[in-house]
């Protein structure tokens, strides 16, 4: 049905990136993340580059729109490498970016490729010293014998310069490919997870990390599952979860033991063995796991659905939302073209405790708004309102780019007679995948990444 999410009406705001269809591999967006205030929006790409956008200060005269996001900083985070010892090509693709909460004037983020995590400091410089005694303004040195008087150099304003510098490099701790990083609620430690192991780091210490999960079997022939995602609990600094390629989630408590190979909780939805097919395990593989802001729930994304789990209930999810169930009859071709292995992410709306006031109602009745969002094919993305149980399908496309015009909901026709404005499953473009989406932590602003473009949508403000 239409109008998912307290009747939020989504409008196009901005699109970043090249218009042309010929996409260079380096331009493929691989991660999108708002910082804790929502003022900054970071993207990482396959070329190892990070681009950070900053929201403009709200213009008091333009009350009908929120500030636009403009480029703030861009830098090369990772370079391609070749491990000669292992004959391994190490991609520079940025797998994940995670922001640290802001403690001083500078901003910090962690970015990671398959093997190395880096802590980047992004700082502003808006003044520079002038009036040196021994240097000319252009930097050339003066002949000291020509100096007859002394002056004190002073700071003068200059055009804002934003500098990114790598402050820590956390390397050589992962044999397999890093899929997740997650900053702990203590803001001092973080975890990094690869296919078989999870390591715990201190943000200040680069020459040591602690292995906290190791699922590598003694005999690799016995390998049955890999780690697909991991995240720290938002409030309990001793708790984290990791998901697997078999559709399970394990919750671990670091107080229990140094090596958390034994889970505290195991979340798994029972499956009728008679329903199993060749594809069952592949499509049950969890591609993303995200805690709710309260930490009471977590959300997982598998190939066809989004599931909400109550941490107090291990034996099944409390809610399941079908993202694109019509693909179940296409699994054969999706396996052949590898799309079945696409890793979709998911996200929660900004805040569980977000209170939406309906302006027309004088006596406000606050209620919490809980919406989850995830991507699909054909540049479609989906939102599910957990309260109203309504869902919506929207499209990220340059054809819809009139600001303040509400996006038209899309509908896929699974079978039978296609209605006007519906799109048949066979017409879907499986090369147009939305894998990465992000929701502003405080406002109804979302960032949606298509292959090489970044779309920003916001709710219609009256």
């Amino acid at each position, binding site marked *: 049905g239409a109008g998912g999410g307290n009747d939020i009406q989504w409008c196009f705001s901005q699109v970043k990136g090249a218009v042309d269809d010929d996409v260079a591999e380096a331009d493929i967006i691989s991660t999108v993340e708002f910082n804790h205030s929502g003022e900054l929006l970071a993207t990482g790409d396959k070329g190892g580059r990070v681009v950070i956008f900053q929201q403009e200060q709200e213009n008091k005269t333009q009350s009908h729109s929120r500030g636009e996001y403009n480029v703030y900083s861009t830098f090369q985070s990772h370079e391609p490498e070749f491990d000669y010892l292992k004959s391994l090509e190490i991609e520079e693709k940025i797998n994940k970016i995670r922001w640290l909460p802001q403690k001083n004037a500078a901003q910090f983020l962690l970015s990671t490729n398959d093997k190395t995590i880096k802590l980047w400091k992004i700082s502003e410089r808006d003044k520079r010293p002038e009036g040196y005694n021994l240097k000319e303004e252009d930097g050339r040195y003066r002949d000291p014998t020509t100096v007859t008087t002394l002056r004190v150099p002073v700071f003068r304003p200059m055009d804002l310069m934003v500098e990114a510098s790598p402050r820590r490099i956390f390397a050589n701790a992962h044999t397999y490919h890093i899929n997740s990083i997650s900053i702990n609620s203590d803001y001092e430690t973080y975890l990094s997870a690869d296919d078989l192991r999870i390591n715990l780091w201190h943000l200040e210490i680069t020459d040591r990390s602690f292995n906290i999960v190791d699922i590598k079997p003694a005999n690799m022939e016995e390998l*049955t599952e890999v780690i697909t995602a991991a995240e720290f609990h938002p409030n309990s600094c001793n708790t984290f979860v990791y998901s697997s390629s078999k559709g399970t989630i394990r919750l671990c408590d670091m107080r229990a033991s140094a090596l958390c190979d034994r889970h505290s909780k195991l979340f798994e939805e029972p499956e009728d063995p008679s329903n199993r097919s060749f594809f069952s395990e592949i499509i049950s593989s969890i591609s993303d796991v995200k805690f709710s802001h309260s930490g009471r729930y977590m959300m997982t994304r598998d190939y066809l659905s989004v599931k909400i789990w109550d941490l107090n209930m291990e034996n099944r999810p409390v809610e399941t939302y079908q993202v694109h169930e019509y693909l179940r*009859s296409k699994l054969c071709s999706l396996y052949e073209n590898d799309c079945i292995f696409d890793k979709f992410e998911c996200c929660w709306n900004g805040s569980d405790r977000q209170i939406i006031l309906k302006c027309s109602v004088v006596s406000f009745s606050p209620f919490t708004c809980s919406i989850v969002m995830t991507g699909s094919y054909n540049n479609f993305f989906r939102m599910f309102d957990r309260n109203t149980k309504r869902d919506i399908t929207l499209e990220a496309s340059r054809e819809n780019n009139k600001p303040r015009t509400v996006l038209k909901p899309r509908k896929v026709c699974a079978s039978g007679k296609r209605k006007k404005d519906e799109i048949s499953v066979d017409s879907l473009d499986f090369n147009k995948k939305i894998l990465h989406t992000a929701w502003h932590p405080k406002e109804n602003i979302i960032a949606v990444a298509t292959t090489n473009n970044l779309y920003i949508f916001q709710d219609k403000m009256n």
Partner: protein
Amino acid sequence: QDAPEKEPAAAERAEEAKLKAKYPGLGQRPGGSGFLMKRLQKGQKYFDSGDYNMAKAKMKNKQLPSAGPDKNLVTGDHIPTPQDLPQRKSSLVTSKLAG
């Protein structure tokens, strides 16, 4: 969304039948170590300098066999040459998102 015409399990099994009809040699379970091992080995590129130098020595006067149509293949029957190895990518330009 429209209700699927088949119950989910039946739809999946129909797709499985299609796949097995196309690839009769396909194993019963897609999971298992072989499948996952491929995933873990992503990025592996082999160059055997011994093979390369022996081949070069034998064919001093002849043209070295160069890459076939598949330039990405550097293992197996094909003798890799330095040109075929994954090149370190040249300096990258600024992202178009920042343009």
